[in-house]
């Protein structure tokens, strides 16, 4: 019934990340109506107040917007022009770069390694 949550991060932040991921992957599209707080809370198996907090924060970030009488919707652009997909993508790149640096790879190798990986994957198809 519920979404997966891990321990250490506050749940409202994990909900925000999950909703952004769904937008980035196209499962939620610009203009889509978001279910009510109550419905979403039951879907995710979380406290309605926690869901409320996550949605308000997403609104503050411009990922969602609310229309007074008809509910909450997914917006197409975040303020400053960056879109959600870009935002999520940047996060993955950061993870890659951080982890590779920890393994001792030099910054100049990182792009090359990605290219080589993609090539090898193609050859194996």
């Amino acid at each position, binding site marked *: *019934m*519920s979404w997966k*949550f*891990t*321990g*250490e*991060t*506050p*749940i*409202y932040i994990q909900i925000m990340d999950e909703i952004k991921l769904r937008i980035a992957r196209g499962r939620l599209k610009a203009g889509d109506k978001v279910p009510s707080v*109550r419905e979403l*809370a*039951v879907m995710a*198996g*979380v*406290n*309605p*107040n*926690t869901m409320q*907090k996550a949605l308000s924060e997403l609104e503050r970030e411009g990922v969602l917007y609310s229309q007074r009488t008809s509910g909450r919707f997914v917006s197409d652009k975040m303020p400053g022009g960056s879109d959600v997909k870009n935002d999520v993508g940047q996060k993955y790149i950061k993870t890659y770069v951080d982890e590779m640096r920890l393994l001792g790879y030099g910054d100049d190798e990182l792009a090359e390694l990605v290219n080589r990986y993609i090539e090898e994957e193609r050859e194996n198809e």
Partner: protein
Amino acid sequence: MSDLVEISGVAKHYGTKKVIFNNLNLSLESGKIIGLLGPNGSGKTTLIKLLSGLLSPASGTILIDGKSIGPESKAIVSYLPERTYFNESLKVRNLVNMFKDFYADFDEQRAYDMMNLLNIDANMTLKKLSKGNKEKVQLIMVMSRRAKLYLLDEPIAGVDPAARDYILQTILTNYEPTATVLLSTHLIYDIEKILDEVIFIKNGEIVCHKPADELREERGMSIDEIFREVFRC
């Protein structure tokens, strides 16, 4: 600021030797789902019984919505005891009628809706239900009241994980948004995501009372892990 529950200076002991609470002070706000977490024997059930009026404190005061414990407080408190107390030869339907007679805030339709979802036959006698279904019926009765305070003593102990999910969902779907749910458990992992606040109780002392997400952020751990650390022997 008027809190839903105000406990001040409460002492409670069983006999002369067994002291449960010495000087308990606790305030609970409306509209929260609060986990009462502590090891066995820490005072969880005693606290819940004090709030439900089954036990009286030796000293101190307890107010629920400004009312002292008595018929007035009981009318707005819905209590799920640790053990079932229903007459096993009753049919589920009789139980619904009994609750309807006893509690003005009981919503019969809501009870039948929940039972339909679960395929529980209202014409069955309680003793013919499985343990899990019996616990669910009991929870349905308690959650069908439109109460201001729900006291759930170990609502998920002793049922399988699928039933646990169902029970949590029932709590989430049915509690009144302005009401507070106080639920005690030692199965923290399963419930921590539905909690607004946690109360850690240890030997009758409240060692921590905080918003769940704040605690998680502060310590960088799940409530379950923090609990294991706080109560490590």
